[in-house]
C-alpha cells in the first residue's frame, strides 16, 4: 500500500541528504551560522521521521544519534571543532549508505556503523544517551500500538468511576470535554453527570475560570490504560481520578507505566492545582474568554526569535520552486522541438511561394522563430540543474579515496551553481568519480613526499564548472606530481600501443592515458584499478557529445578538462548531402570545410586517398562508403570537412555537398534500431524528412583506409598536431 509513499520518502531522502551535505560542507568551510546548523538538524530529523514510518530501525537509530549530536551543537553545548566536523561528514556519508541500503537492499558495513555510533555517542551527554530513541509505537493504547505497557487485557467487564475536573488552562489548548466523552463512549457504556456545584453566583462568574466538573461511570471491558489514554492530552490540565472496581494497586502500577511511557510524571496529586510536569502559561486576561495567546515570559522565549529569523530567511531565502515530473518536461521539450521544425518547414514553403513582396511575412516569420527559440531555451533551462549535488557527491569520493590511500586531500569546488542538463549530470557521475579517484591515487603524492617537494601536506583537488561559449566546461585540477611522462611512454611501448621509436609531444604522451588498455598502476590498486582505464572515462564523455583533454606539468599537477554540450536535445549541425541523403555533421567536430579540387587529392596505395592542406596530408574518409551507401553517379566528392578527433588526429570527411548550418533537434534512435556505425542520432529537417546525425569518429573508424593511414601517421608523427 505504501509503495509509492515509500518511493516519495526515498526521493525526499535524496534532497535531505543533499541538504545535509551542503550544510556540513558550509560548516566545514567555517560557516557555523545557527541557520546552517538548523538546516542540517532539520534534514536529518526529517529522514529519521520518515524512516520511522517505514520501520527502518537501523536508519532511525543512526539518524537519531546524528540528530542528537546536532541538537547539542544547536544548543551551543558542543563546539564545532574539526574532529567533530569530520565525524559529522563521515556520518553524513554513512547516512547516505543507510538510505541506499534501505532502498536497494544489501548489507551495511556493520563495523563501520558501530564505530560511527560509538564515536557519535561520545558527544552525546549521558542523560540524552539514556533516552536512546526507540522507534516507539506511540502511547496510543489498544491492540494496535506496540505500547511499552504490557497489561493483559481483562476480558471481564469493569466499572470505572471517573472524576474529571478540567482546569481553566485546558480550554486554552483546544481540548473539549465533550470530545473526550465521545471517545470514552466508544469504549463502553458511559453515564455522564455534570457537577456544577462550584459554579458561583451569576455576577461572580469569571469567564476564564473553569467551574465545571464531571462524574463519569464507564462500564467497559477495555483495560484501564485505554481509558487513561483518552485523557492523555489533558493530563496535567485537569484533576482526574479513575477508580475501577478491580485491584487498585495494579491500576496504580499501570498508570505509572503509562506515565513513564509518555515521559510524564504522575499527574497532579490530590487535586493539586499546580500541574506537575508542565510549565503552565499565565492565566489568560479575563477580558477575553477565548484561549489567550500563550506567551510565557521565561520558558517560551526561545521559539519566538527563531520564528523571526525563519521569516527573514524566507524573504531573502531560496526562491520558490515547483516540482514536476521529468516526463512532462520532456514532452514539452519534444513539442518545442516540433515547433522549431514546424517553423523551418513553414519558412521553406513560404520561400517556395511565388509572392512579389514577402517582407511582411518574413518579418513575422523571424518573430516566430525568435519566440520559438525563446521558448526552447526556457524549456531547456527546466532540465538544466546545478552541478552542486554532483560535486557534493564527489567530495565524498575524495574523502573515501584519501582514507583508502592514506593521503590527505581536500576537494575544492567552484561554480557549483553552473547548470547542466540533467542527463549530462547523471552520466557525468561515473567519469568524474574515476578521474577523482585517479587523481588521489596517482596524482596526489603521499604527505611526506609532498613535504619534501616543498608543498603543503594536504593535497588539493579543484573541481570547477563553468559555462564557456555555449558549452559546459568541467575542470579537475590537482596539485600532485603530474603525469610521469617517461613512465607513461614506457608503458605504452611495453603494451604495444606505440612503436618503440615513436616521438611524441608532451601532450601526446599525456593523452596516451586515454588509450584503451592503458593503466598506469604497477599493481592494480583496488581504488582506481579494476582494469578500468581512462578510456572508459573518455567514452563516457564522448558519449555525451563532449571532449576530454589532459594537460600536466611535472611536479605541479594535472588538469583534466571536459567540454560538454549545454544540452543533449539540440545541437548545431552542418547539413550535408551524401549519396542523395541529407545528413547532419556536428559543428563542434568540424575544424574547416573546403571545396575539393583534383589537385588536392593524392592517392596512396590501392584505395587510400590523402588530401593535401597547406602542405599537410590528411587521410580522406568517404562518408558514403563508410556508411555502406551507394552513390548514384560517379561524381567526385564536392566538399571536404576537416575534422579532428579527440586525440588530435585529423581526417577529411568527403561529402557530396554542404547546404547550411543550423540548429537541429536531436532525436534518439534508441528503440528504433540498433546501434549504427557512423550514426549518432537523427533529426527532423525543415521539409519534415529525417536526417541522420553523423558521428565523425566512428565514421573514420569504419573507414578502413583512413583508419589505417591514421595509425601510420600517428606512429610516424608526420603531422604536427
Amino acid at each position, binding site marked *: 500500500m505504501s509503495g509509492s509513499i515509500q518511493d516519495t520518502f526515498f526521493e525526499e531522502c535524496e534532497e535531505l541528504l543533499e541538504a545535509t551535505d551542503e550544510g556540513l560542507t558550509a560548516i566545514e568551510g567555517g560557516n557555523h551560522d545557527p541557520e546552517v546548523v538548523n538546516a542540517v538538524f532539520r534534514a536529518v530529523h526529517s529522514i529519521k521521521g520518515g524512516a520511522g514510518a517505514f520501520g527502518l530501525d537501523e536508519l532511525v537509530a543512526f539518524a537519531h544519534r546524528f540528530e542528537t549530536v546536532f541538537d547539542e551543537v544547536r544548543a551551543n553545548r558542543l563546539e564545532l571543532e574539526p574532529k567533530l566536523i569530520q565525524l559529522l561528514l563521515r556520518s553524513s556519508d554513512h547516512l547516505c549508505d543507510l538510505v541506499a541500503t534501505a532502498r536497494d537492499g544489501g548489507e551495511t558495513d556493520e563495523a563501520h556503523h558501530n564505530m560511527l555510533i560509538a564515536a557519535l555517542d561520545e558527544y552525546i551527554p549521558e542523560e540524552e544517551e539514556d533516552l536512546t530513541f526507540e522507534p516507539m509505537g506511540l502511547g496510543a493504547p489498544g491492540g494496535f500500538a506496540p505500547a511499552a505497557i504490557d497489561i493483559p487485557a481483562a476480558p471481564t467487564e469493569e466499572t470505572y468511576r471517573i472524576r474529571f475536573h478540567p482546569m481553566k488552562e485546558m480550554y486554552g489548548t483546544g481540548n473539549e470535554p465533550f470530545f473526550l466523552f465521545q471517545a470514552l463512549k466508544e469504549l463502553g457504556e458511559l453515564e455522564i453527570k455534570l457537577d456544577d456545584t462550584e459554579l458561583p453566583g451569576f455576577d461572580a462568574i469569571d469567564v476564564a475560570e473553569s467551574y465545571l466538573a464531571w462524574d463519569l461511570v464507564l462500564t467497559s471491558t477495555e483495560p484501564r490504560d485505554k481509558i487513561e489514554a483518552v485523557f492523555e492530552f489533558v493530563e496535567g490540565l485537569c484533576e482526574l481520578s479513575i477508580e475501577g472496581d478491580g485491584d487498585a494497586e495494579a491500576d496504580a502500577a499501570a498508570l505509572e507505566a503509562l506515565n513513564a511511557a509518555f515521559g510524564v510524571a504522575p499527574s497532579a496529586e490530590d487535586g493539586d492545582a499546580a500541574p506537575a510536569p508542565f510549565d503552565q502559561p499565565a492565566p489568560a486576561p479575563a477580558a477575553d474568554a477565548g484561549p489567550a495567546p500563550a506567551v510565557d515570559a521565561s520558558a517560551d522565549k526561545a521559539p519566538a526569535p527563531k520564528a523571526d529569523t525563519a521569516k527573514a530567511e524566507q524573504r531573502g531565502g531560496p526562491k520558490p520552486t515547483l516540482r514536476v515530473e521529468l516526463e512532462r518536461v520532456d514532452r514539452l521539450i519534444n513539442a518545442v522541438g516540433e515547433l522549431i521544425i514546424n517553423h523551418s518547414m513553414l519558412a521553406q514553403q513560404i520561400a517556395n511561394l511565388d509572392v512579389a513582396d514577402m517582407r511582411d511575412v518574413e518579418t513575422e516569420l523571424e518573430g516566430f522563430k525568435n519566440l520559438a527559440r525563446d521558448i526552447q531555451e526556457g524549456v531547456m533551462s527546466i532540465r538544466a540543474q546545478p552541478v552542486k549535488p554532483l560535486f557534493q557527491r564527489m567530495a565524498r569520493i575524495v574523502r573515501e579515496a584519501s582514507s583508502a590511500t592514506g593521503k590527505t586531500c581536500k576537494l575544492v569546488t567552484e561554480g557549483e551553481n553552473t547548470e547542466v542538463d540533467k542527463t549530462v549530470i547523471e552520466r557525468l557521475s561515473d567519469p568524474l568519480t574515476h578521474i577523482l579517484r585517479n587523481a588521489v591515487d596517482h596524482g596526489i603524492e603521499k604527505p611526506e613526499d609532498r613535504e619534501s617537494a616543498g608543498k603543503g601536506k594536504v593535497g588539493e583537488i579543484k573541481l570547477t564548472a563553468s559555462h564557456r561559449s555555449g558549452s559546459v566546461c568541467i575542470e579537475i585540477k590537482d596539485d600532485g606530481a603530474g603525469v610521469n611522462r617517461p613512465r607513461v611512454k614506457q608503458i605504452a611501448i611495453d603494451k604495444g600501443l606505440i612503436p618503440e621509436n615513436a616521438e611524441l609531444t608532451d601532450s601526446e604522451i599525456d593523452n596516451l592515458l586515454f588509450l584503451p588498455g592503458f593503466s598506469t598502476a604497477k599493481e592494480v590498486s583496488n581504488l582506481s584499478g579494476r582494469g578500468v582505464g581512462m578510456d572508459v572515462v573518455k567514452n563516457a564523455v564522448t558519449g555525451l557529445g563532449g571532449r576530454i583533454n589532459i594537460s600536466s606539468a611535472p611536479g605541479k599537477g594535472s588538469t583534466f578538462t571536459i567540454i560538454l554540450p549545454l544540452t543533449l536535445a539540440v545541437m548545431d549541425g552542418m547539413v550535408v548531402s551524401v549519396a542523395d541523403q541529407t545528413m547532419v555533421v556536428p559543428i563542434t567536430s568540424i575544424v574547416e570545410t573546403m571545396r575539393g579540387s583534383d589537385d588536392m587529392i593524392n592517392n596512396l596505395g590501392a584505395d587510400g586517398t590523402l588530401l593535401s592542406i597547406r602542405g599537410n596530408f590528411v587521410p580522406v574518409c568517404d562518408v558514403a562508403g563508410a556508411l555502406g551507401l551507394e552513390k548514384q553517379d560517379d561524381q567526385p566528392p564536392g566538399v571536404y570537412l576537416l575534422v579532428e578527433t579527440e586525440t588530435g588526429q585529423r581526417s577529411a570527411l568527403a561529402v557530396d555537398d554542404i547546404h547550411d548550418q543550423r540548429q537541429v533537434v536531436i532525436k534518439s534512435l534508441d528503440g528504433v534500431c540498433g546501434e*549504427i*556505425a557512423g550514426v549518432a542520432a537523427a533529426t527532423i529537417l525543415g521539409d519534415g524528412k529525417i536526417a541522420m546525425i553523423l558521428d565523425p569518429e566512428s565514421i573514420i573508424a569504419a573507414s578502413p583506409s583512413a583508419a589505417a593511414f591514421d595509425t601510420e601517421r600517428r606512429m610516424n608523427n608526420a603531422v604536427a598536431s
Partner: protein
Amino acid sequence: MQSQVEVKHGDQEVKHAQFSEFVSFTVAGQAFCLKITQIREIRRWSPVTILPHAPSDVLGVMNLRGAVIPIYDLSARFGLHQTEASERNVVIVVAVGGKPVGLLAESVSEIISINPDDIQDTPPVDSRYTMEYIQGIISHDETMVRIINLDAVISVPEQVMM
C-alpha cells in the same frame, strides 16, 4: 472495436460470438490482415530516410508527427521479393511494445469481420517465415487471408539489426 453479436437459435439457445474486425491488405500479391485494434493509422507511402547498414527488409525511418519510426518492407520480411515502393503503396503504422512501427504494404483492401471460430491454424509448410509470422488463416470471399503475428514480425528484425 469488438462487436458482441447475439445469434438466436429458436427461443432457447443463445450463442455468443465475439466478432473481431480485421483490416486486410495485400503484400506481394497475397492477402494478409491485422486486427484493427493493432493498427494506429494508415498512411500513403512517402520516401523514407535510409538507415545505413540496415538489413534489406528495413526500408529506413520516417517522421511520424515528430517521432522517428522504422519502416519495414513486409514483403521482404516474409521472404518474398523486395517492394519497389511508390506513392500507390501504403504504410500501416502499428504499435509494438508501445512503440510505433511502419509496415509497407501494397495496398489496403477492406475491413472484415471475423468470427474467431473461423480462424484455421496455419497448415505446416516448408517456410520458416510462414510458420513464424502467420498465426492463422481464414477464408474470406473465397480468398485466403493470412493473419499476421505482429510480435513475431517485428521482434525478429530488431535482433537482426543489433
